């Protein structure tokens, strides 16, 4: 009985984190899948969202900026607004150049943000991080608070999914695909390529910021190591490629599948003796990387590949 209750709680936490990763993957899908923007600063935007929400919702403390005690809905909204503004600045510099530059700049943003988090101790409590972040529904009894939080995450994922699906089917989404497939043609058709790219980049980053905010509220604690490149950026990329980029169902599926694989393998390695456990953690990253390479080379479409509309045949 005790054991099955434990497993029940574990599955809830697995689904909650899977849902948060699904948000990140959906955000990346708008950027990479539909528009072809190569963002490797996911961790940076994630951390911006997490810290903004954490600072705005925590009670008064001397360790870091705070004491606003705003409701979490406002924290979530603020984190989306701030991430959007920063993404807009990055986009202004990089989106007119080819994707490689965006990749370099976004990896830089991630690093710069980590420096800010570590050095501006007055605002962020430096490497020790922000703790005591309130968690939605935490006043409820034990399994129900976790279930309600999970429900909040899943509802958010579904809402984001429906919004993106609607956007992709609209003329806006078709322009996005046109830009990815043939930029000169889209330009020749009179589309403002820069503006569409910027919109996709900013919207994608906003969703990443929201996912960060959810993580901060869920874990009740956030520190600069949460932005570590391997666990966030890389996993999200692998999730999207494995699930199927340019397909929102694939993105969500990839997030849940890879998150399950990732945390289940952690359970396996943590059973090993200490020294071995630390080392095999690196083997996990290596194998995830290898999975990415195999998918890229053999199944670039992912588990659920992109659905392309059939070209309409002109009547003879």
């Amino acid at each position: 009985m005790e054991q099955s209750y434990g497993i029940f709680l574990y599955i809830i936490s697995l689904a909650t984190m899977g849902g948060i990763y699904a948000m990140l993957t959906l955000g990346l899908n708008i950027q990479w899948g539909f528009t072809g923007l190569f963002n490797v600063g996911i961790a940076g935007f994630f951390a911006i969202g997490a810290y903004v929400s954490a600072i705005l919702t925590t009670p008064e403390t001397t360790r870091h900026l705070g004491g606003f005690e705003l409701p979490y809905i406002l924290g979530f909204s603020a984190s989306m607004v701030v991430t959007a503004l920063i993404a807009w600045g990055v986009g202004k510099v990089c989106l007119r150049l080819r994707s490689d530059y965006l990749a370099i700049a976004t990896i830089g943003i991630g690093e710069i943000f980590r420096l800010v988090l570590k050095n501006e101790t007055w605002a962020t409590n430096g490497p020790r991080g922000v703790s005591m972040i309130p968690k939605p529904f935490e006043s409820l009894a034990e399994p129900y608070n976790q279930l309600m939080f999970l429900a909040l995450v899943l509802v958010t994922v579904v809402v984001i999914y429906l919004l993106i699906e609607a956007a992709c089917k609209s003329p806006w989404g078709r322009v996005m695909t046109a830009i990815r497939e043939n930029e000169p043609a889209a330009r020749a058709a009179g589309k403002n390529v820069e503006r569409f790219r910027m919109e996709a980049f900013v919207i994608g980053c906003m969703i990443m910021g929201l996912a960060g905010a959810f993580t901060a509220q869920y874990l009740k604690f956030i520190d600069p190591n949460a932005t570590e490149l391997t666990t966030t950026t890389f996993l999200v990329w692998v999730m999207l490629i494995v699930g199927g980029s340019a397909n929102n169902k694939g993105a969500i599926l990839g997030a849940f599948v890879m998150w399950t694989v990732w945390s289940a393998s952690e359970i396996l390695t943590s059973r090993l003796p200490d020294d071995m456990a630390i080392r095999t953690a690196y083997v996990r990253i290596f194998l995830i990387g290898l999975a990415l390479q195999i998918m890229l080379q053999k199944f670039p479409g992912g588990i659920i590949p992109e659905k392309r509309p059939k070209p309409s045949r002109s009547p003879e």
Partner: protein
Amino acid sequence: MIALMEFINFYLIPGVVLGSIYALGAVGITLTFGILRFANFAHGETMTLGVYFTWTLMQITPFHPLVILPASMLLTVIVVLGIDRVFYKPFRASPTIMVVMASFGIMLMVRSIIQFIWGVQLKGLVPGIQRPMLLFDSLRISPKHMVIIASAVVLVLAIHLLLSRTKIGKAMRAMSDSPELARLTGIGTEKIVMTTWVVGASLACAAGVFLAYDTHVETMMGFKLLLPMFAAAILGGVGKPYGAIAGGLIIGLVEELSSYPWIGTEPLLNPGYKAGVAFAIMVLMLLWRPSGLFRGRVF
């Protein structure tokens, strides 16, 4: 006078040392960017790998790191050529962003292998602290800094001779400037690609070993250099090896000089933000002149 010597000893010389390391690393980045047409995210890990090869060889032989360097360069080159064959070559005809993504994966794969084999503890390449030598009464320069600067000059001369005097070097520059024209004149693409990896990996290994010789051996050392090296390549102009050398030196110097108390007695920039300097220079360059100082390519 004392203030001037302090400036030279504690800011200028470390800046030149760091700049030479960035310069050597950035040459590989810029050549890959120019010739293979992609931003190689795994270049920092190539450095780290070279450093760990050197460290391992030093455990089994009694030689100085500089003596071992050619051997570890060779090992690094072999690994990098293998990576190219297995992970990058299938994408030669694909959109370049596929290779960028593959290199991003390779970055983490190589790093995790290094962490698995050698562990994450700090290691030293040379034991103990060296006393700086006193030249002309007040010019202090530590022997290892002299060794690094001198070796970097030798390597830069070697690159210069390769690029300006040999057929393959000229072909590399031609390929970087205009791939279509180069192909029309009958330059073999695959041979140039291999040479690019050989040059890039050897220089990356050397740069890494110089950094480890100056500081210590660490699994994240290459990744920390990635951003300054990209910044150096963009500052110098993508595809321009001489630009990358100039860019590397400028970035290294500006990084070190940014924490000098230019105004008042406080450092101009909190040393904690030193790593952000390269990024700031890169962003300004992308805004002002994306082709870089040496008029490189803009993609």
